[in-house]
Structure formats: structure tokens, C-alpha cells
């Protein structure tokens, strides 16, 4: 099991961002978490990379438990994860190459190995011709592909994509979703947060719905009609 949420609740000043969440994510799985804004999707993600910890219950990710993890273990957990954000969060003063290379640089990989891995990944994602460009010189779709490349560069076991298509037009959004499906086929587990689950074909992924911090049975959830 890659991710396990056991009775996890998270309160901010008594307000429940997450309540009694029980969830398991298997190796190689594609999980789509959807729900309206403020449903707790981002909070759920923060618990996976342990940028936030539960008020009650425990999260276990790739062998690290939230109630036992030490501060010094956090980098090792996060090196097993790839994270993609809605606003890309690329570093503006770095080129595409340097942005993608960052996770390898902070892990102490040799410059030669970094070059080899980054060049091959950029080629795979058809971004090689953009390797010397800065983020502001790229389109939204290209920026998100660079962000996905950065998330994938250190061969993560899970890719967390938090509303990766939120800032993109429908055509480019579909390209990004197709890329995530492709990555999943190569064996990487994907957890995708989106307010529009219709972007992902039904047979490809497992769907979960969050509403005001609670997991809702997808069959009983009426929010889908509101999308």
C-alpha cells in the first residue's frame, strides 16, 4: 500500500478541513479526487507530502507514518513523491533545464547523471527545444509540462497533481490529462485533484469525492450534476 489514511481528521480552529478520512492508494493506481472548491482536496494532498499533519488519526505514505516521522525524514519522503500544482510554481530565474533538474540537485545527484536524466525526460515530453527558455517565455501548457517533468525527474512512486489543468484551456488540459494517463501506464501511481472529474475517462481511474472535508460515496453524491 502506498498511501493509507486511517481515521484522519484535520481541524483549523475547530473547523473541519478533513473529517474521518479512511483511504488507501495502491501501487500504480490512478485516483481522481474531485469536489468543489474548499472541499479539502489540497488539505488531503498536504497530508500526503506531510506539509500538514492530522489533528487525529494517521497517514502512512511510502512507509513513513505521520505520527512517527521525524523532521529529518521529510526530505526522504518527498523525494519519493512528485508534486504538480495548478499555478505550476516554476522558479522564474531558472531555465527549463534547471527547473527540471532541481529535485536531482537537492538530492545530491552528480551533474553528469542530472544532464543525462533531464535531457532524456525533456525529449520524452517534447520539451528539449525549450530547455534554455525561462518560464515566462513558455505557454501555460508548456509550463505545466515542465512542472510535470520536474515532478517525474526523480522517478517518484506517486505523482500528486493538484488541479493541474485549473489554469489551462480545455484543449491543453486534455493534453496534460493524457500525459498523466501515459505516466500512470508506466507504473507510477497518480493522485489527481480536480473539480471536474469528467476530464478523466471512467475506465482509467478510481474516483473519490470530497465534500466539506468528508469522503462521499460517489454513487450517492449529487455534486456531479452541479459541475
Amino acid at each position, binding site marked *: 500500500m502506498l498511501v493509507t489514511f486511517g481515521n484522519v481528521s484535520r481541524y483549523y480552529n475547530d473547523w473541519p478541513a478533513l473529517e474521518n478520512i479512511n483511504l488507501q492508494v495502491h501501487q500504480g493506481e490512478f485516483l481522481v479526487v474531485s469536489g468543489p472548491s474548499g472541499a479539502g482536496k489540497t488539505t488531503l494532498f498536504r497530508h500526503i*507530502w*506531510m*506539509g*500538514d*499533519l492530522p489533528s487525529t488519526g494517521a497517514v502512512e505514505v511510502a512507509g513513513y507514518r505521520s505520527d512517527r516521522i521525524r*523532521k*529529518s525524514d*521529510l*526530505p*526522504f*519522503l*518527498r*523525494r519519493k513523491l512528485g*508534486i504538480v500544482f495548478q499555478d505550476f*510554481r516554476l*522558479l522564474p*530565474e531558472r531555465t527549463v533545464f534547471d527547473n527540471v533538474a*532541481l*529535485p536531482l*540537485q*537537492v*538530492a*545530491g*545527484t*552528480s*551533474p553528469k547523471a542530472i544532464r543525462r536524466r533531464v535531457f532524456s525526460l525533456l525529449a520524452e515530453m517534447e520539451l528539449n527545444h525549450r530547455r534554455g527558455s525561462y518560464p515566462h517565455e513558455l505557454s501555460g501548457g508548456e509550463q505545466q509540462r515542465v512542472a510535470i517533468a*520536474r515532478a517525474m525527474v*526523480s522517478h517518484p512512486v506517486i505523482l500528486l497533481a493538484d488541479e493541474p489543468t485549473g489554469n489551462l484551456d480545455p484543449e491543453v488540459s486534455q493534453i496534460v490529462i493524457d500525459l498523466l494517463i501515459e505516466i500512470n501506464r508506466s507504473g507510477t501511481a497518480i493522485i489527481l485533484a480536480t473539480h471536474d472529474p469528467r476530464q478523466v475517462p471512467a475506465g482509467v481511474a478510481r474516483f473519490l469525492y470530497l465534500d466539506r472535508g468528508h469522503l462521499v460515496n460517489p454513487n450517492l453524491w449529487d455534486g456531479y450534476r452541479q459541475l
Partner: protein
Amino acid sequence: MIHLLSNAIQEGLLNIRVKLGSFLITLLMVSLSFMVFDIFLIISWNLGTVLKNEQENVGIEVFLSDNLTEVEAVNLADIISGMEGVRAVYYVSPQEAEAVFRADLPEQADLLTLLGPQFHLPPSIQISLHPDYRTSEKVGGLARTVSGMDGVEDIVYGKEYLPGLTKAVDILESLVILAGLVLAVSLSLIVANTVRLAVARRALAVQIMSIVGAPGWFVKIPFLGEGLLTGVAGAAGSLLFTVAVSWMLSSSIHHEFLPGKWIMLVLILGASSGAAGSWIGMKSGIPKPRS
């Protein structure tokens, strides 16, 4: 590990390169603050040298009674030489005292001829002291002990100026330490503020590095390096400015520049203030990885 450290250093250099302008302005501010301190140190150093030279000459001159034989005088000198704080003693016979008088005051040499052959200057013992014993209290204590000894007629030491001299040296040393501390604190605050601004400006990079698995020290080293470099380069810059000012004033005001040991002290003060400033800036600026 080597690659990780090298990447952290490159990260620091990138930080500086990206905001070279503001880095140079901070460097100038630090250099000017340090320059005030350097000038103060030069004044203190030169004044201190004068005072120390005066203190070097602090000793006791013991005048002996005329009826003391030379053997008795030498025995007395032996006893005094064994006393605590005494570095050396020198017996001055009446003949040697006369020779010194004639050499030092040739225009008054006739006075000795006028007084006749039966007059002679008194024999004496000159006592030089260990450096730690050149204070007014210690010299006074030793002088009192020696004055009570048989055959001692009179004792001369700088009891009028010695307390003032000792106090002046003490005050000067305290002032240098105080100025150093004040400068270290103010410099730390300047660097802390610079680092805090750098952290705020690089909040996204700090956050992303933390999320992609950078160890805490990897995130901190560039800021620490920036603080250290600001401190050391600022101190070095101030020394260059001060050398220029010192050279311009050398023809009108005679003075010496700081010795190598003090220059090292300025650089070390710069480095430690820079490091302390970085630490303060990072402590208040870098968000906790878990909130």
C-alpha cells in the same frame, strides 16, 4: 554529499547573481559601518601604543643611604630581585650615577665640579617590573615593601601619573571591546534584515526546494553563505577604504595603520556578525516545513 554541497554553494551564488545590485548596496552599507569602527580602532591603536610605551617605562628607583657599602647594596639588590613582580634589578654606583648625570645633562655638569670632590650622587637600584605589575596598585605595594628595608633612603616611581595612565589604558581597552560589540550587533541586524528580505523574495524557491526533498541545511546554506560573504567582504572593503583614508592623512597626521592581528580581528568580526545575522534572518524568515 560532495555534489549536494557543491549544489548548495551554486544555489547561493545564483542568489547573489540574481540580485547583484541589492547585494552590492548592502555590502557598501556594511563597509561604511565597519569603516567607522576601523578608524576608531586606528585611533585606539595609536593612542594605546603611546600609553603602553609610557607603561613600559614604569619602574622603581630605590635610592640607598650613603653609608651602605657596595657589597651591602648588591646584597639588597639580590633580595629585591627575588620579590614577586620584579623582572630585573640594576645597581647604579655613585660613579655610574655621576657619569649618567654628565651624559644626560652636560650643561649642568659644572654643578658637580662646584660641589667639590667630597660630594657624590647617592647609589641606587633600578627595578624593572613584569608587565602585569605595571599598575599603580601593584607598583605602590612593591614600593612600600622596599621602602621599609634597611639601607633604603628614598623611593621614586610615577605615583602621580601612574593611576591615570593605568585607568586610561583600561578605559581604552573597554571602549574597543564595547565598540566591537555595538558594531557586531548592528551589523548582525543589517545582515539579518538583508537575509530576511532575501528569504521573502525567494519564498517560492524555498518552498519548492522543501517540497522536492531538499534537506533543511541545503535550503539554509545559501543564505548563511550570503551572510558570511556580506560580513567578510564588507569588513575587507572597509579596510580598503580605511587604508585609502589613512594614506591620504599620513602626511598631516603621523600614525600607524592597524597591525595584522587587528586586521584579522576585523575580518573575523565581519564573518561572525554576518553568520549571526543570517541565522537570525533565517530563523524569522524561513517558513517551517510543517505548519
